[in-house]
């Protein structure tokens, strides 16, 4: 009896396998776009508008620009890459992994953000942050990992410019990308953090705290460049063009991005 029982189970398992094997390959049509996580809300909205207008689907993958660059070198099947810092695009281009040098699509800005009820009151000059540090009441402060996340590196530069870097170091918690950083900053387990303005302006995030825009000349500019990768198909090409058109640009502006003048 047990043998029969076992065999029946094996059959059931195998047949369910046959049935389930199909869908994975059927949906491989839509190109995968790797996008820096500061684009989490803006590009999701642009993609929805793109699909509504053209009928093309794209699949979005958000993460840290540095990690995506590494994955593209290892052969990740992305068709388009929207980086938070153009340096990464230049490197990939030099290695022959992109179709061309790409195009500048936005300039990103930093925001100091604190959750509702935090001891930190965000101000553009970071005076309140400095006061908390002075008083010894800061417990945790979130920035993205400067090693591979452009927004982290720029946050470090801004803190260095303000002369707070050495003092604030022991209190830092590092997000894997700027989106996770916003999550950390607003979780209530930190006084706040430095995030992308584009995240601070998203309704889901804005409802959870207050923010202040950090002066652009406190850090090197976040020149955000995008590029088509070598295997890009027609749908990725269409999306690449769409991001540069007025409808998409209007969405980018709404999320606080500064747009380049050249199309």
């Amino acid at each position: 009896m047990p043998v029969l029982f076992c065999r029946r189970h094996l059959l059931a398992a195998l047949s369910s396998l046959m049935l389930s094997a199909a869908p994975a390959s059927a949906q491989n049509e839509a190109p995968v776009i790797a996008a820096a996580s500061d684009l989490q809300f803006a590009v999701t909205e642009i993609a929805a508008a793109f699909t509504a207008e053209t009928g093309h689907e794209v699949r979005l993958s958000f993460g840290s620009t540095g990690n995506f660059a590494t994955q593209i070198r290892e052969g990740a099947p992305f068709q388009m890459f929207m980086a938070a810092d153009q340096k990464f695009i230049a490197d990939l281009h030099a290695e022959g992994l992109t179709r061309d040098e790409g195009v500048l699509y936005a300039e990103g800005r930093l925001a100091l953000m604190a959750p509702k009820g935090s001891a930190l009151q965000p101000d553009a000059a970071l005076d309140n942050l400095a006061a908390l540090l002075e008083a010894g009441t800061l417990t945790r402060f979130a920035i993205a990992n400067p090693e591979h996340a452009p927004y982290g590196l720029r946050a470090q530069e801004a803190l260095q410019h303000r002369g707070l870097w050495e003092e604030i170091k022991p209190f830092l918690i590092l997000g894997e990308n700027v989106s996770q950083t916003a999550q950390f900053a607003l979780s209530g387990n930190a006084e706040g953090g430095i995030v992308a303005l584009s995240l601070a302006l998203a309704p889901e995030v804005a409802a959870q705290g207050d923010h202040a825009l950090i002066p652009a000349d406190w850090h090197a500019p976040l020149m955000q460049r995008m590029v088509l990768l070598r295997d890009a198909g027609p749908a990725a090409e269409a999306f690449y063009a769409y991001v540069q058109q007025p409808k998409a640009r209007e969405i980018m502006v709404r999320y606080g991005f500064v747009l380049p003048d050249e199309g």
Partner: protein
Amino acid sequence: MDWTSLTLSLELAAWTVAILLPVSVLGGRWLAYGRFRAKGAVEALVMLPLVLPPTVFGFYLLLAFGRNSPVGAFWQETFGHQLVFTFEGLVVASVIFNLPFAIQPAQRGFEAIAVDLREAAATCGMSPWRSLWKVELPLAWPGLMTAMVLTFAQTLGEFGIVLMGGGSIPGETKTVAIAIYDRVQGFDMQGAGIMSAALVAISFSAIAITYGLSARVGRRLA
């Protein structure tokens, strides 16, 4: 609720179980009955994925199967696409990572079979193959079942490896564990909560059913 990710995770778990079932029977039996000098080393090697941090494991897999490695290059030539960052790549990683969960309980299952019984089967003129089907599997199957359920549940929850060598591609490498991580980062706590609860329910049911079945079989045999 992200059904694509949940389906993908279930598919990954099903493939892993299907590939590891014969491995668990043959490998577990070999380790249970075999007497050879390197046995300790083989057992240690099988258990290694259990103690290694998944990130270390994922890092080595990326090196071993990346486009610059011999395996990665062979895969590219044979199938015309990359192994890492694909569903097939996740299956390969998952199979290796689950070896301890698949082999260990099976080995214990075979070890529990009395030597007399196997000798009796051989004396009756049964071939090793026939003895496996008629005598050993009916006795060892609770161990095998445990092995497969552990593998299935473990694959559903796998995170570190998929994060290192997956790329979070919807419908290809974005498993439910990654989807939950992405939802949290996208400030969608409700979505993350629903998917987490679904994962807890599926894993709990799988293990509860196994224990229930094992208990029933235990009573019947006693």
